[in-house]
């Protein structure tokens, strides 16, 4: 029996109830799988028992208070909240310059330049971690939070640049020309016209870069020392003991990430979905 032939209609829809039921069921199971660890983390951060199990032993905030008393994890969280925003900022600076240059100038080696900046994302972080440690220890820059900053900038510049490039690509060339024509120098045009235009892209790129840096484990593990970022400290904790405080810190991190990613969603998705060039 032929399906309805309206343009745009789902050709696999119409009848076929069983397929739909199967599809919905599969999706439900899939999403449960995806969401399970997060739900677990949040629920069990409020559980009284030392060992997570069902049935639980009642609700309590003891793990949150332990988190704040103990301080190791909190300190690591603080470290991450220092390094990652800085790394995201560094990535946005480099990413903006690169995106602007790629957008405006036709130069020899344009493709290679672009590839070079994206390459760090494609190389396994384990390799990068060893490599970074190698060079940094040679120049005495290893084992500090600063080392994490330096290396993270390399890795998160690519996503930041991608988002900024997306936004700059929407800028009509006449906009800069108009500014020049009216008497603005290149620098003036940059901060009076280009930067305001690129701002949503820069903000989205920053949030994306921040998220990637915040969660990054292996490179930080190699290059940091006594001052650990959060993933490194968490790892040490897990390997060392089973402590539900981790659920507490996880829930806090989750809340932070949700906030920053809602920001990304509000800024990024409109950019990604709008293909029209805004000609004022």
């Amino acid at each position, binding site marked *: 029996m032929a*399906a309805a*032939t309206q343009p*745009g209609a789902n*050709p*696999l829809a119409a009848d*076929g109830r069983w397929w*739909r039921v199967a*599809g919905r069921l*599969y999706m439900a199971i*899939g999403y449960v799988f*995806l*969401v*399970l*660890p997060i739900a*677990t983390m949040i629920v069990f951060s409020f559980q009284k028992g030392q*060992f*997570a*199990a*069902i*049935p639980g032993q009642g609700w309590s905030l003891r793990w949150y208070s332990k988190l704040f008393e103990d301080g190791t994890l909190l300190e690591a969280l603080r470290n991450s909240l220092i390094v990652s925003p800085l790394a995201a900022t560094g990535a946005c600076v*480099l*990413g903006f310059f*690169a995106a*602007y*240059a790629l*957008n*405006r*100038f036709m*130069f020899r080696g344009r493709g290679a*330049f672009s590839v070079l900046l994206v*390459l*760090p994302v494609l*190389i*396994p*972080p*384990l*390799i990068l971690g*060893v*490599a*970074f*440690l*190698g*060079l940094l*220890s040679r120049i005495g820059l290893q084992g500090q939070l600063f080392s994490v900053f330096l290396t993270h900038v*390399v890795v998160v510049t690519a996503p930041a640049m991608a988002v900024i490039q997306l936004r700059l690509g929407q*800028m009509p*060339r*006449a906009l800069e020309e108009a500014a020049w024509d009216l008497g603005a120098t*290149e*620098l003036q045009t940059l901060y009076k016209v280009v930067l305001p235009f690129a701002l949503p892209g820069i903000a989205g790129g920053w949030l994306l870069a921040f998220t990637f840096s915040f*969660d990054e*484990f*292996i490179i930080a593990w190699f290059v940091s020392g006594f001052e650990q970022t*959060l993933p490194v400290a*968490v790892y040490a904790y*897990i390997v060392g003991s*089973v402590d539900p405080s*981790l659920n507490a810190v*996880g829930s806090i991190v*989750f809340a932070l990430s949700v906030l920053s990613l809602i920001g990304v969603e509000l800024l990024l998705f409109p950019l990604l979905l709008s293909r029209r060039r805004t000609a004022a």
Partner: protein
Amino acid sequence: MTADMPPSTAAVSPMKLLGIGLPLLYSTTFFVAPLAFLVVLGFWLVEDFQVVPAFSLENYADIAQHMFAKSNYALAIAQSLWVSISTALLAVLLCYPMVLAIVYVAPPSRHRLFLMLAVAPFWSSYVLRLFSWQILLANKGIINSALAWAGLEHLQFTLIYTQTATRIGLIHYLAPILIVVLYVTVASIDRDLIQAARDLGATRWQAFRRVILPMSRTGLVVSGSFAAIISFGDVLSGALLGGGAGRSVLGSVPLFSNMIMTEYASATNLPRTAALAMILVLVMVVMLAAGAALAERGKVDAS
């Protein structure tokens, strides 16, 4: 695209210099140099706890000696290959129907919502997610204790510290990326083609096999290769869920990536670690090449 400043302006545009120069400088110093140095580092030695420049094959010789004995690197590499490839296959096999369901069952207005939900795991830290999996999968963890409480003791399992658990962690890590990539692939398949097949009397299954599947092929192969390579280089799932040397068909063998990490942690022999890393790179390049060859063959077959 923005406009090129005409040559009649004095000198070279400063933005051109800065825009290209600054990122280039940073990338060269902190990306290219470390990687180049890594290669060199593999030939250096450690004397009296100090890294000493040399040109020695001692690290590689030592590794070669331990390939099939003592540290058993070969087995670890085999374990890594086995786990990563099987994980990639499984991940693709599990995510593909998910994507098909989103594209063809879910109403189009909801696609964006479902994609965002699929990316949700990204909203929490990977390492913390693995901790959750730990307490979920532990022998007396959440799932097992829930089963006991429900009177289903016979369903209880011992998954923790096996490579199966590692796979669960990896698939959970890969799922968001795979779903997004596969969604883009499947969503771009022209609905008119499917419609045409259906009009010609094809059943759903036939339409899938003859139209959707072949057109998804490249996307499947590419995301599968991606998944394999990411899994191969991963350390966290293997360490936290696999227990460092998780049990698998090949035995309780650590993953090669975990091995590099633990060896560094215990011996802090950087040149040796660098040499091991180079071997990892080598295996990965081979995997990449194989993946590319598969993709090419897929393209030729499909055309």
